[in-house]
C-alpha cells in the first residue's frame, strides 16, 4: 500500500507538470496583451510594460522563471487587479464555490440515491417510471434554467429566500438547489442501472441461497457493489461542481472561482489563468486519487499492491 501511494504521488506530480507546461505554452499562442485598456496603449507604452513584467523575454526563459517561482509556491500577481496575488484571489473565491458545490453535492447525492434505489427496487412500477422521468428531465434541462426559475419564483414572487448576492447562509440555498438538480439526476440514473445489474449477478443469488435476510442482501451486497461506479463518477463531478460554475455564480452573484476563471481567459490575465488551471488540475488529480483509495474500501477485490499500478 505504501509503495503504491508513493508511486501514485510521483505520477500525480508528473501529470501536474505536464499540464503546467502545456498550459503555459498554449496560453502564449493567444493573441493580445494582458494589460488593461489595450485600445489606448501605444506601441512604446506596450514595450515599456512588457519589459516591466518580463514579457519581452523569450518564452522559454519566461517558462523557466515561472516554474522556478511555482516550485516556491509563488503564483505571481494578477495583471488586472494591480498588486493582488493570484494565491489570495484563489483563496478568496474558492470558499463560496466549494461551499455551494459541496452543499449541492450532498443534496444531490442523498436525493439521487434515494430515488435510484427506490426505483431499482420497485423496478417497472409507477414509482420507477416517475423517478426515471424526473431524472431525464434533470439531466436534460440546463441548471441555469432552474436557477432562473428558482430566482424568480422563490426569490421574487414568494420572497422565501434571497434573490441573489452573498449574504449569509440563506443565500447559499438557491444556488445549491439549482446546482444539485444535475447531481440528483446523474446519481439516480447511475445507481438505478447499477443496482439492476448487480441484482442479476450470481453472488446475489448465492447470498440469498445462504439464507440472508432480504434487507441484508440489499444493503450489504447490492447497494455496496452498485456504489463503486457511482464513486468513480462522483469524484470528478465533485471537483467540477466545487470549483465553481460560471453560470450559477453569475446568476446568483456569488463571488466564486468559476466566474473568475472565465474572465481571466477573456482578458488574458496570464498569471491568473495559470494559477487557476494549476489549482483545478491539482484538485482534480487529488480527487481521482482519493476515489481510487475509496474503491479499496468498497470493493474487496481491489487491493493495491505496488504492482497493480
Amino acid at each position, binding site marked *: 500500500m505504501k509503495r503504491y501511494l508513493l508511486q501514485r504521488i510521483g505520477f500525480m506530480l508528473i501529470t501536474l507538470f505536464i499540464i503546467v507546461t502545456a498550459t503555459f505554452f498554449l496560453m502564449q499562442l*493567444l*493573441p493580445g496583451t494582458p494589460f488593461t485598456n489595450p485600445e489606448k496603449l*501605444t506601441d512604446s507604452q506596450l514595450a515599456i510594460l512588457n519589459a516591466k513584467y518580463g514579457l519581452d523575454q523569450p518564452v522559454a526563459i519566461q517558462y523557466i522563471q515561472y516554474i522556478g517561482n511555482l516550485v516556491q509556491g509563488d503564483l505571481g500577481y494578477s495583471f488586472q487587479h494591480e498588486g493582488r496575488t493570484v494565491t489570495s484571489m484563489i483563496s478568496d473565491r474558492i470558499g463560496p464555490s466549494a*461551499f455551494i458545490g459541496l452543499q449541492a453535492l450532498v443534496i444531490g447525492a442523498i436525493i439521487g440515491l434515494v430515488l435510484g434505489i427506490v426505483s431499482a427496487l420497485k423496478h417497472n412500477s409507477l414509482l420507477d417510471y416517475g423517478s426515471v422521468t424526473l431524472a431525464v428531465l434533470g439531466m436534460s434541462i440546463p441548471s441555469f434554467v432552474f436557477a*432562473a426559475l428558482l430566482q424568480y419564483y422563490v426569490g421574487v414572487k414568494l420572497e422565501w429566500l434571497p*434573490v441573489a448576492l452573498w449574504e449569509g*447562509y440563506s*443565500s447559499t440555498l438557491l444556488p445549491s438547489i439549482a446546482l444539485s438538480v444535475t447531481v440528483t439526476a446523474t446519481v439516480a440514473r447511475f445507481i438505478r442501472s447499477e443496482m439492476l445489474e448487480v441484482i442479476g449477478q450470481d453472488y446475489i443469488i448465492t447470498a440469498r441461497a445462504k439464507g440472508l435476510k432480504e434487507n441484508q442482501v440489499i444493503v450489504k451486497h447490492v447497494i455496496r457493489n452498485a456504489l463503486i461506479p457511482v464513486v468513480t463518477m462522483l469524484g470528478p463531478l465533485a471537483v467540477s461542481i466545487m470549483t465553481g460554475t460560471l453560470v450559477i455564480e453569475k446568476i446568483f*452573484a456569488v463571488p466564486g472561482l468559476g466566474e473568475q476563471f472565465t474572465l481571466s481567459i477573456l482578458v488574458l490575465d496570464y498569471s491568473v489563468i495559470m494559477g487557476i488551471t494549476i489549482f483545478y488540475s491539482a484538485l482534480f488529480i487529488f480527487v481521482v486519487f482519493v476515489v481510487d483509495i475509496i474503491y479499496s474500501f468498497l470493493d474487496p477485490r481491489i487491493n493495491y499492491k505496488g504492482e497493480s499500478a
Partner: protein
Amino acid sequence: MERKRKTQIFMILIAFVLILSGCNFNSSESSNEESAAEGEAGQVLNISTTADIPTLDSTKAHDGIAFTVLNNVNEGLYRQDENHEPIEALVTDHTENEDKSVHTFTLRDSNWSNGEPVTAQDFEYAWKRVMKDASPYNFMFVTAGIKNAEAIMNEEMDAEELGVKAIDEKTLEVTLEAANPLFQSLMTFPTFLPQNQKFVEEQGDQYALEAENILFNGPFTLVDWTHEQGWKYEKNEDYWDADTVKLDAVNAYVVKDPAAGVNLYETNKVDRIVLSSEAVDQNKDDENFDTILEPEVIFLRFNHNHPVLGNKNIRQAVNMAIDKASLTDVILKNGSTALNGIVPKGFFKSPTGEDFRDLNGDFNTGTVEEAQKLWETGLKETGATDVTVSINIADSEDHKKVAEYIQAQLEDNLPGFKLDIKAVPFAQRLEIEKAVEYDLSLSSWGPDYSDPMTYLDMWLEGGSANRMDYKNAELEELVASARTETDLEKRYQMLLDIEKILLEEDAAIVPLYQEGAAVLMRSKIKNLLVHPTGASFSYKWVTIEE
C-alpha cells in the same frame, strides 16, 4: 488490523475534504441585517455594479468602476458638475502666467481621513508616481500637456522632471508645454488625485488593496470592501464640503447578470439597474424606465490601402447604404441611437451652449438610390466590377448581430458587393486592426476626457488609434492648432472643421451608432450625476426623497 488502518486513512481523507471546503461568509450575516435596517433609514442609496474594483490606487486605476469609487472618496483640484464641467474642489484660487503655460493653484485647508492635512506635496508625489510606474493612464499627462510628460512616457527623461512643483504646503505650480484649453477640465480626472506619501510608503505593496489600506479626503469614505461582493460608502464628516452631502451611505453590490439585477431591483435590494436588451420590452412601460445616451461610439474602419475601398465614392456609398436607425431600433433595442458623425450627441457643448452634433449635423446620409449612384461612379473610377471584402469583428453577440445586419444591407443595396464576416476574439480583432490587415473593421471608441478632441485626434497619421492608414494634411494642421488655441470659440470651430474633413471631405469611416443604456431607477433618487468620462457617477449631490 488491515481494516483498522484503512479506516484511519479514510477518516484522514474525510477530514481533508472538510478542511478544503472550509468557508467563511465574512461579516455577511450581520451586514445583511444592517442593510435591511438602513433600508428604512432614508438617505441610503443602493446600487449594483458589474464588477469588482480592480484597484483603488488612483495612480494605477484604469476603469470606470475604480474611477467612480475614487471620485467619491477622494478630492482633487477640480470635480465634475452636472454638465461635466470642472468646478473648484480643493482649489480656492487659480492663476496663470501671460502665455497660460504656468498655472498656480492655492489649496484649501482639508484633511485626510488619518487627520493629516492635504498638501500640494501630495499632488506632486502622486503625479510623479503615475509617470514613474508607467501607469495605464500616464498618457493623460501628455493630453494635459504637462511639461516633459511625453519625454518621460517615452523613457527619455526621469519622472522627477515632470512639470509639477509644490511651492509650499498650500501652493501647487503646474507647468505646461504650451497653453492648453483642456487643462482645467482634465484636472477632474481621477488620475490627477493626490496621495499622502508617508501613508503610501508605509503601506508598501499593500497600499489600496483593501478599504483600510487607503486614505480618503472626499465626500465619502469606504468602510467595507469585500472583493467580488461589494463595498459600502459612508458620509465623510471631515470633508470640507460635508454640509452639501446629504446621503448617509451608499451600498454597492457586484451583480454581473442583468436578469439577476432586475430581480434585485424588484425586491427593493437595489435602486438603479441597467437593463439588457432582452429586458427592455418587459420594462419599458415602467414609470421608472429611462434610456440614457452613452459616449461610446461604434463605427466601421476602412482599410485606406484597399484598391476599391480606398475610393471616396465607394466609402460614401457604403455610408449611405446602411439604414442605421433600423439597426438601433429594431436589431439592438438597447437604448443606442444612430450616429452620423464621430462625436456623439449629448455630451459636448460649444462655448455658446450648443451641442456638437447639432452644430455639425449629419454626414453622408442619403437614399439607397444615391448610394447606388455613388457606387457606380466609384466602381468606374477604380475599374472594378464587383467587390468581395471581409469585415473584421470581435466575436461578441452584439457585434455579430451588427455585422450580419451590415452584410445584409450592403449586399442588398450595392449590386456586386459581397461581404464575409470574420469573427475573432477581441484581442485579436485589435491586433488585426493595428496591423491594418483587414478590409473593413467593426470598431468602438470611448472618450478619455470630456472634449470632442478625444474623438478627433485619433485620426492623425501614425497615431496609435488611426489603424487604417488614413492621412489628411489639413486635418493634421487643424488638430495641431486646436491643441493650443485658447480662444474657446475659435477652437470649437476648428473641432467642427476636423470632423467635416474626416467625414464630409473624406468619408474616412462609417459612423454607425452611439451606445445607450436602458435603466430602471427609483424616482425617489435625485441628482445622481452620470458622467461620460473618468468617473461614471458622482454621489456627492444625491438626495433620497421619499
